[in-house]
């Protein structure tokens, strides 16, 4: 399976990763190599096999809905460089 440059750019956009043109060329080759490898999976017949996502078989793990001590507002904001009035400050996502 070969990825095109446009596909690499599209995936980078979906993943919000800034890429240079050189990186696009490099990753086009490297990602195609990895995809070639994983195409081996098609050699395995999985007709009628159910997928496994939880290996120890746990299902629907629930707990009581109780409040517990948690971080204070100051602690939660302790590592951010952009805060305002006790909140995380983010870039606008909607146009005015």
């Amino acid at each position, binding site marked *: 399976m070969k990825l095109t440059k446009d596909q690499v750019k599209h995936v980078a956009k979906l*993943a919000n990763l800034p890429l240079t043109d050189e990186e696009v060329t490099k990753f086009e080759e490297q990602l195609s190599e*990895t995809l070639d490898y994983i195409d*081996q999976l098609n050699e395995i017949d999985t007709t009628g096999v159910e997928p*496994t996502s939880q290996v120890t078989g746990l299902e629907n*793990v629930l707990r009581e809905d109780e409040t517990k001590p948690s*971080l204070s507002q100051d602690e939660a904001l302790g590592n951010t460089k952009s805060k305002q009035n006790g909140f995380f400050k983010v870039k606008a996502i909607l146009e005015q």
Partner: protein
Amino acid sequence: MNNLNQLTIKQAKEGLKQKKFSSLDLTKACLDRIKEVDGKINAFVTVTEKEALEAAKKADELALQGETLEAKPLLGIPVSIKDNFCTEGIQTTASSKVLEGFIPPYDATVVSRLKNAGVVIVGKTNLDAWAHGSSTETSDFGPTKNPWNIGHLPGGSSGGAAASMAADEAIAAIGSETAGSIRQPADWCGVVGLKPTYGRVSRYGVVAMASSLDSPGPITKSVEDAATILQVLAGKDPLDATTSPNPVDNYFSSLTKKISGLKIGVSDEYFNGVTEPVRERVMEALKLLEKMGVKVKKIKLFPPEYTIAVYTILQRAEVSSNLARYDGIRFGHDRSYFADEAKRRIMLGTYALSAGYYDQYYNKAQKVRTVIVEDFKKAFKEVDVIIAPTNPWTALPLGASKSSPMYGEMADALVEPSSIAGLPGINVPCGFTKEGFPVGFQVIGPQFSESLILNVAYQYEQATKWHEERPKL
């Protein structure tokens, strides 16, 4: 008496109990050793000298006040922690520049359990950035070198943890494994590494890699020490819903059981592509085990090379989702700080999960995962445990990880199948190559059979002395 930093947990506890030395002596010996050799091997991202000395003094005070090693089984024991475990007030980077300067306001459950047991944390060890790799060469803070030969890799991703054991920079180490990251570096560094069953040890507060696989565990100088640490770490955690409610075994009581009569499975598929010196050492170990009374039985297992493809898809997909949170807003730097390895993995995972490809890749891989789980279940109807080489090769030279974007998967081929099935496995040192590189084998058991694999590993270890060998640094 060895230098104090060379002691195992067991030896250190005996010395502390008999008041031959204090935790402060022990801690200073480890910190001195770090100062002496870490410039050469770079096992640590952060050394927490001030905090360690304070914790050691506190441990000594508690001991004076009558606190016992029964109640706090690691009281005063210096350990290193892989830098992907959140440590309150101590920088946690996962060896990525994205998280440089991040100081968690809370402890991972593994760390809080260790602290409750009385440990002294001497520092945070190096890893492949985000634990993506099997070399510790993709760390944004420089590669860790193998203490047995500093021109070679320690393996990874817990390369700093394994090197900190081989170089005696701490008494015990904590690592984490997604598929190989404990067993493979333990193998290359000639120490013991235990990957528990998925869900036996909490993932809360560990920088997430592939959430359906991540398993924290000990890297130690002896099998008994691995049992000591696992006893502290294992158990249900309300903060990680995937931890198992199964009762925790007593991992010590079974160590000394005779293993004669046990059936050990050996599969030819796990010797394909394995280099000659590794094959020889593992066959010698099997011969010794046979002398001790085990029955070695040939079994057929699903070929590991297909597991590489399954693992590559699952890991990349889960990585792309887990690393989406690093946007530089709440903590850390923005996404331009990711290095190549993380970018490759995020992009491949994003592609595999994107519209139109989910069934072809992720869902297909989860189905093959079922095939692998069933294959092991069938094998464990015939045998009690499986023994195989941990790695096809011994430690490769620095730079080897750059040879292929699939390097890590190839290095981990023999540990990936058991990780994908959530099984526990332990690396046990079993000798050296002519050139002096350590070789190990792994014991793999059914889910939650940690007692059994520790028993087999311990019995082999006691019959040999490989684990006592140390590199000259």
